[in-house]
């Protein structure tokens, strides 16, 4: 994977609320930026003084009439297939759950004060931002208590993703620290705890 400091745009906001937002992109742009559990950010204000931070929890590719017809065809022409993937007018939708925001340079692990405006650009967080954000674990509760998201798998995917923001020598301890926090938060549900721990085990 090529890692560089350039901007990694995931898409633009389609619809939003304070708990999360959906962003869309062309289906041809789908790549490994759009990964379940990735940390993304989006400005809430024009001057980017407040930036919402979220996790990708769903990636949806909706159908359209042509896609339904092509699915029914016995043989799909390769040109039609490529055209359908690259030029169709239905966006790929990426669901994001808000887990915090940056306000005047300070990371806050809570829901942002306002949702992002539509068509705002959604970007991947940088490794430094992920590292900084995961210095605290208050966002765990937001994920574990979130409705309509696969919270166990999401938190495991997010922590696995975040561990790569740490130097290799620190990754194990980061996972252990997260596991300890989860052990406290899920102490009343040991089956769920052991499932999540199995997912983050290195």
């Amino acid at each position: 994977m090529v890692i560089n400091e350039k901007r990694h745009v995931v898409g633009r906001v389609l619809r939003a609320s304070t708990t999360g937002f959906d962003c869309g992109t062309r289906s041809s742009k789908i790549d490994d930026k759009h990964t379940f559990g990735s940390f993304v950010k989006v400005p809430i204000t024009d001057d980017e003084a407040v930036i919402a931070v979220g996790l990708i929890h769903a990636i949806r590719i909706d159908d359209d009439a042509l896609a339904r017809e092509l699915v029914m065809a016995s043989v799909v022409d390769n040109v039609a297939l490529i055209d359908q993937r690259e030029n169709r007018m239905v966006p790929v939708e990426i669901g994001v759950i808000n887990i915090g925001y940056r306000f005047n340079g300070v990371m806050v692990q809570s829901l942002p004060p306002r949702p992002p405006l539509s068509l705002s650009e959604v970007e991947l967080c940088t490794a430094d931002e992920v590292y900084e954000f995961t210095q605290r674990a208050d966002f765990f509760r937001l994920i574990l208590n979130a409705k309509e998201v696969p919270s166990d798998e999401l938190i495991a995917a997010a922590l696995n993703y975040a561990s790569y923001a740490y130097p290799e020598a620190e990754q194990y301890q980061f996972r252990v620290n997260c596991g300890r926090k989860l052990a406290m938060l899920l102490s009343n549900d040991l089956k769920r705890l052991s499932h999540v721990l199995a997912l983050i085990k290195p």
Partner: protein
Amino acid sequence: MSLPLPKRSSTALRDPDAFFGVQLSQKIGVVVGGSLSKGLVIKLEAHQSIEDLAVGRYIVVHGDKRRFFCMITDIVLDNSNPEIQNTPPDISDAFFRDIYQGYAVFGKIHAQPMLVIDEDGTPKPVKTIPAHFTDVMNATVDDVNAVFGIEDKVHFNVGSPLELDQTQINLNLKRLVERSIGIFGKSGTGKSFLTRLMLAGIIARDQACALIFDMHNDYGWAVVDERGANSKGLKQLLGDRVSLATLDPASTIKRGAGSRRDFDVVIGYDEVEPEDLEMLRETMGFTDAMLDAARTLRGKWKGNWIGKLIDATNEDFDEIEATSPVRVGTLQGLQRRIQRFRKWEFLVEQSTGDSVRNVITHIEQGKSVVLEFGRYGNSVEAYILVANYLTRRIHEHYVDKVERALGDAGLEPNQLLIVIEEAHKFLDPRIASQTIFGTIARELRKYKVTLMIVDQRPSGIDEEVMSQIGTRITALLDNERDIAAVLTGINGAAGLREVLARLDTKQQAIIMGHAVPMPVVVKTRTYDEKFYQAIEGDISGQPIRLAKNGGSGDDNPPPRSPKLGSGGGDRRIR
């Protein structure tokens, strides 16, 4: 696996411990509950190995305004969800072990606050407890020193606290001897060793003279310990400060101390009074009627009543019966018992010297006296008779001297410590109120005579006497009644019960009471060459003090911290 994560700068490296806050190196946990009466409940930090803790160990709770010195009294395994006991995780996997241990499952300790050091540094009794989530630390050398101070002429190093070998517990000898002392422990736990250690310190530092009724020849001359090694007796260790007396010269000679003995104790029949038999009531089976008969015989036959009784005929008894209410049967019973005295060679028809005077003279010269019983040590009756005989007379002498000293302070006698073994035979609840030992225990320091009682069955000692014992030095006890007896009248006794029952069988004891600021479990000093050198240094006036407690190595130590009180370093909490 690789993710499209933009590279982070290397300068952003941070300490992973910061994830949940940095932990202090000495912190072992936080207070999570408890009460003043039942002690504190402390949740252990995840990094704190539960196996490294032990009951009896000191910890310090650092409150906002004061430090609480506590002793660990119990150790508990706990969890955040009891369900985990039914489905234990697989902790053979290091990752799961690192997560579960200390978080989903964790250790707790119960600790009894023993004393408080206030903002001004003064130790005080515990009247409150620290708030929730107050940090709990291991006791450090400085913490222990702040309570027990440094070794000097009055403070004697008896050993080190548990897990703190680099420091020492210094016992206040002055306070130790001014009230009676109890040394308890089941058989084989080193009571004699402890007693010898204490006596060596007391005598070497001139805090009292001791009269030691040495039942099993443990104190005077060379003693063979359980490993077969020879340890020095007090006479060898302390030289002229100790006089060796014996009831059994043959035994003393056989053990190589014949030429070093100072005098033999011989008691004439004419010197024994009916009151001296009172304490033999249980062991020799004297009835009230027999003791009354003894008084009658003493009145009729005067001095040599025992000699005459041993040889008396039925005609003699008929004559007594005719002139007094005493029955022949009673006299015959008394005679059969008294005739056992003939086996004891230290009892003679006519004594040529005055053993009591001998003992008193040595004590007045500032010497301690070890009275070896030799082969008579196996006879409890002989031991009780002699101890009672000598103690009654010496006590009378002391009462007389102390009363005369009221008008002339120069006549005040030396502090005397009488050491008796098998103390429950002397201080049985049925006889304690009538015996001289019960009297001494109750009178305390009024007449400058106190007891050091060495016993393995403290439950057999009269409760009132136990309550008057100033300092209790207790090795392992496992009988519930004995433990309860030793802890009578001790603050926070419930917690100490566990500590007491779990002491090592050797070289460990808990010291409670008058001579220490708070109860302390000590690993006692080894009675070895190093100890001999320290004692010899005390005697020669060039004391060897261990520098680790901040001692200066001489008898003029720097002044104690003014925070810890003044004068003789009386740090005890009242």
